[in-house]
């Protein structure tokens, strides 16, 4: 029997298409937040930080811990009043990125830094090792956060309290929906990305980062403290991943100790698509991957989503290894 790729044809016409695009772009913004962590680290030390996706996963559990400390669980989330909701989101946005940034920085200090002059494979394999340790840690963490005083099976996915209500803000006859959750994503990711761009373009630390990315030795000769710049990169990348995990958890309302692997690969694909090491490229890549994922699940079928995104990753690497916005560099011998 021939495979019917278009079995899941979408109902409705243009309105639905626009709706899927909006959904895709919003989800893409989340990918972009994580992709930035990949692209910044790769840009500076040419390391595919495999553990970044799992750092994101640990961020969602940190968010869960913050909520349970505030007494918010899946069953009580709907009853939370506006004040408590705002407080909870604010606290999560404060604590989770700090935690992720600190963890990312410490991992670089303890594990990657001694390997700076080792063969290329060594930090990459170490990063895979860190990702395993993080996953194990996430598994334990999930088992340690109780749901209404009951333990939960640590290995299965668990629900994240649905804190932000899903209220449509557009009139009913507008033909599409734009909900409070969508507003939350836009209101938080957009300023962060603008701030990051300004930071890298305008500040002296940003300038040092660009210099180090271009040529670490030359940057060191110019008096730049390269180790500090690398540390700062891990801090910023981790913090962005932390914001991403709060947004993701509040938007999707589920997490698991394995959530980091797939999300990380999507985000990495986004970074490569945009041109790895290129900050606007990561954002563009994230949006494109989000669109592909959203439209793909409608027009091709949800089960093919991951295969589709990996196929795109491979095609980009074959035909445009430097990505959409990346500059083509010649390999030095």
């Amino acid at each position: 029997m021939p495979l019917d790729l278009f079995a899941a044809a979408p109902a409705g016409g243009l309105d639905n298409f626009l709706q899927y695009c909006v959904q895709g772009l919003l989800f893409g913004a989340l990918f972009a937040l994580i992709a930035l962590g990949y692209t910044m680290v790769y840009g500076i030390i040419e390391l595919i930080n495999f553990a970044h996706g799992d750092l994101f996963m640990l961020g969602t559990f940190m968010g869960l811990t913050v909520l349970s400390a505030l007494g918010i669980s899946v069953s009580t989330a709907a009853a939370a009043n506006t004040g408590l909701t705002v407080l909870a989101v604010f606290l999560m946005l404060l604590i989770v990125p700090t935690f992720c940034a600190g963890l990312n920085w410490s991992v670089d200090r303890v594990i990657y830094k001694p390997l700076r002059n080792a063969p290329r494979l060594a930090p990459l394999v170490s990063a895979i090792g860190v990702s395993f340790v993080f996953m194990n840690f996430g598994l334990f963490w999930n088992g340690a956060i109780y749901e209404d005083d009951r333990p939960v099976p640590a290995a299965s996915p668990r629900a994240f309290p649905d804190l932000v209500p899903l209220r449509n803000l557009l009139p009913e006859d507008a033909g599409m929906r734009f909900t409070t959750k969508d507003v939350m994503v836009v209101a938080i990711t957009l300023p962060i990305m603008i701030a990051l761009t300004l930071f890298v373009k305008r500040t002296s630390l940003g300038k040092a980062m660009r210099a180090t990315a271009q040529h670490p030795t030359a940057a060191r000769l110019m008096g730049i403290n390269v180790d500090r710049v690398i540390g700062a990169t891990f801090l910023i990348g981790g913090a962005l991943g932390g914001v991403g995990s709060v947004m993701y958890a509040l938007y999707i309302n589920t997490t698991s100790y394995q959530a980091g692997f797939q999300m990380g690969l999507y985000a990495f694909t986004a970074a490569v698509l945009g041109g790895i090491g290129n900050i606007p490229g990561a954002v563009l890549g994230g949006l494109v991957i989000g669109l592909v994922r959203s439209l793909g699940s409608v027009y091709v079928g949800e089960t093919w989503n991951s295969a589709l995104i990996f196929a795109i990753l491979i095609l980009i690497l074959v035909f445009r290894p430097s990505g959409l916005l990346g500059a083509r560099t010649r390999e030095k011998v």
Partner: protein
Amino acid sequence: MKTILQRVPWLWMMFVLAVAYPILPGLDKEVFEITGQPVGRVIATIFISAILALGLNVVVGNAGLLHLGIGAFFGFGAYLTGIIMVREYPFQREIAPVAAFFLCVAVSTIGSALLAVILSGPVLRLRGDYFALVTLGFGEVVRFTLRNLEEVTAGTKGLKPIPSPWTMDVDFAWNYRGYYFLTLTFLTIVILLLRNLERSAIGRAWVALREDELAAASMGLNVARLKLGAIALGAGLAGLAGCLFAYVLRNTSDPDQYGFNISIMTLCCLILGGVGNRTGVIVGVVLVFGFDNLLSPIMDSYLQRQLFAVADPAGDVRVFGGRIGNTGSPYLNFSGWRLAVFGLALIFVMRFRPSGLIPARRGSTKES
């Protein structure tokens, strides 16, 4: 200079032990009574993992290409066998089981090698970690395809039953010896083949390629063909391992068995044991898969018995009155720590012994 670990004749020791285990009468039954695990059967799967790891070692160790998707070819081989033996069921009855087995071996090996050539051909010019990433992508694409093509692969249910390769129907649980010696024979053949290949012109060319691609090309070696050959051989061995795996399990299991996890575990064996060194790789396989498939289940059932003895009726475990967890808590299970154990092993080996426990003797192991 040889280190002490390099002087020990690991391969011979392991071979003698492997042959002795099933020959000693009643040993497996005795071991089963103590451990509660069908150890002989598990060892047969460890032999299969060793074939898989040796296949990966051709790509990573000999040719110096980091490959993160070997599991896909393992799975592809298993599913080719499954398709021949289960989907084409009428065909089974017209052909002797032994002949069908060798047909499956040939089809799985060649099929996986061909798939690898088709997939990797276009991406050969990518270098270093980009190549690694693409192989990872392939691995996932193949896994999702296996899962989604339900008409052919039965989705997550897997294809079953795969009949035994011999005519008489032996009791699977106890008479493990057939599969044991079958897999051990294949492993021995693979080791001999790879040993000879490594000493041949192509083996030396791979070393040149691994040490410096540009220099190798300048000396007139056809780099693309060498890389493709290593990838095809590696994937072919992985396909062979998949075929044997399907036979020993008597089904293809489900596609998630062949994902990133198995690829990384296999890579773990290489890195732990010593990339590029056959003996080291097999020591790595014994450590990693022995830990995962033998030690973990044994320790788990032991720990569970201990926990249930001290737990209260609600399942809470207390030490000196303080609650330390539930009988189901992953950190009170031995296997709950496996990811951390492997992760830390990778980190520590990379930091303190970057060429593995038993490093390859010849040349350096510098990777691009």
